[in-house]
């Protein structure tokens, strides 16, 4: 590797129409594939095996509950069970909580990101961006504790402002939404900020020169351009809220039924019968919903990239 590979150079300098260049292109393509192989192998093992095991287990009977020695057989019973009773309530509860908190998070994140983008203070931008990076990635445990200490039953604000008398409880749907927004808004800021940076100042000036009001500029220029990345952000937020488990788990006693809590209960053996295969079926339900949502997300992201790069 000490001297440059002539074939590589040929291809890199210019698309020369020489007989050798076909070979060089092929060789370079092979080198490119080779660089991707470790990634693909890793994902196949660390992600593929558990994913296949989950999908497989969701459709087979549990060996632990059947008679010893019998092989597990194909069944759709796990899936049916996962879509009934308390499990179904948890699934719809998760979808509802995720949709509501993602919607509020999208609007809030857009407002905050726009305020930061148009601000003159560079320090504010750094502070908000780094704080967003931490809050969006750190996970829910510290956030849940912060909210328990602030607005929980014995929280600082709850006791000082006598919120309990006003009917406040953190362990409800809206309480959980408030906690979720603490990491969803930062996530939205991170995902929409590049698009806001990409809005050209000239567009706004052009609109103003044509006599448009601020509202008209947003309604007819900025929002249509931002629409794909806003929708993409919503989808990302929905997926994150849907998958969230730590927050709800750390807020012991929350009365909101969530699918992630149900899966964890079943996996930990906290339910009477061995429900581990139902847990796998519930996981599959989650994957199906997340996949449906992702299918919306990917083409949108590409469309916003076309406008804003």
């Amino acid at each position: 590797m000490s001297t440059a590979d002539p074939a590589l150079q040929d291809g890199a300098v210019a698309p020369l129409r020489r007989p050798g260049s076909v070979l060089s292109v092929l060789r370079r393509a092979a080198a490119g594939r080779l660089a991707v192989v470790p990634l693909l192998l890793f994902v196949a093992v660390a992600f593929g095996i558990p994913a296949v095991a989950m999908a497989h287990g969701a459709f087979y009977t549990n060996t632990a509950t059947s008679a010893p020695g019998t092989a597990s057989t194909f069944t759709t019973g796990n899936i049916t069970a996962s879509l009934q009773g308390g499990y179904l309530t948890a699934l719809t509860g998760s979808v509802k909580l995720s949709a509501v908190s993602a919607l509020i998070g999208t609007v809030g994140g857009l407002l905050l990101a726009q305020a930061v983008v148009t601000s003159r203070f560079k320090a504010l931008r750094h502070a908000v961006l780094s704080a967003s990076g931490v809050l969006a990635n750190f996970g829910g445990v510290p956030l849940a504790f912060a909210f328990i200490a602030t607005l929980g039953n014995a929280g600082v604000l709850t006791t000082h402002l006598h919120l309990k008398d006003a009917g406040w409880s953190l362990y409800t749907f809206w309480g959980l939404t408030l906690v979720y927004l603490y990491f969803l808004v930062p996530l939205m800021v991170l995902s929409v900020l590049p698009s806001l940076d990409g809005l050209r100042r000239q567009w706004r000036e052009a609109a103003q020169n044509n006599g448009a009001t601020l509202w008209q500029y947003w309604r007819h220029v900025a929002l249509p351009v931002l629409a794909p990345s806003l929708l993409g952000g919503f989808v990302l937020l929905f997926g994150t809220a849907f998958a969230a488990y730590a927050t709800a788990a750390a807020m012991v006693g929350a009365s909101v039924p969530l699918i992630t809590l149900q899966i964890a209960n079943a996996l930990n053996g906290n339910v009477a019968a061995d429900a581990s295969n139902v847990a796998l079926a519930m996981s599959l339900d989650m994957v199906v919903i997340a996949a449906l949502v992702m299918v919306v997300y990917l083409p949108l992201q590409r469309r916003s990239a076309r406008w804003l790069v």
Partner: protein
Amino acid sequence: MAGMTAATLTKAMDPPPGAQKSARRRGRPRFGRAAVLVVFGLYFVVPIAATFLFTVDDPVKGLNLSAYSQIFGVAGLWPALRLSLELAAATIALVYLLLVPAVVAVRLGGPRLRTVVEVVCTLPLVVPAIALTAGFTDVLKWGSDSMVPGQTTFVQQLLIDIQNPAFPVILLLAYTVMALPLAYRTLDAGMRALDVRTLLEAAQNNGAGRARAIVTVILPNLRGALMNTAFLTLALVLGEFTVSSILGFTPFAVWIVNGNAAGQGPVTIAVSIVSLVLTWLLLLVMSAGGSRRSSSTPTHQ
């Protein structure tokens, strides 16, 4: 055409009749911006501040910092934190090893390669962490269920080894999978700001081999994105709770929750606030340093 542009420009620069109106138009968003910043500032600062108050305000002993001084002596914190930091270091290394070559190849290769890598790195978003964990438990259970004492197969031994509590490799695998989407996006964005092809070409024309060109030319230019990836992955691993708690390991976040349940309330809350603020300060210092460096070189994200 030119005359028209000039006319529009002068009109915009010098708007005598609508001057008041445009001033008001410019004034309103500034007020709106201040309101937005105040509301969100309160929303994000009050819980942290109130939590701090909660940890120092003892109903019996009054104001004291014992929750914070106990941090250094509380049982179990340091092993848990060390495990998390070791896992974070290993995860960051593995993410670099897997993604840097792939991202370089994507920049140089065709659109089909890009699609493959993009889809592979987005897949973990489709399978939530808890579903991945359910899959892992199923694989591990299969390993222990099918085991015949005395004749452990290679695969079964492997499944036991990756659950070694001293360094659970299975968590490393899970965390790397979970870090892939964000890490790929960060590295790819950093790459996009570089003209990789020209840089490589220049290095190779000067006699560097491809590997050397990547290590000495591309990677230093990618410093900002690499640092970002590292810190976001660190935040992810330090805060990770789902996989580790269900698989029965005790890294940092699990220790916090277990300790809280076991009656060490104030200390665990103090620890979680300190960890949050410390990670933020680290990221802030890094992002300020990174922007100072990048301001001298005209790169645009």
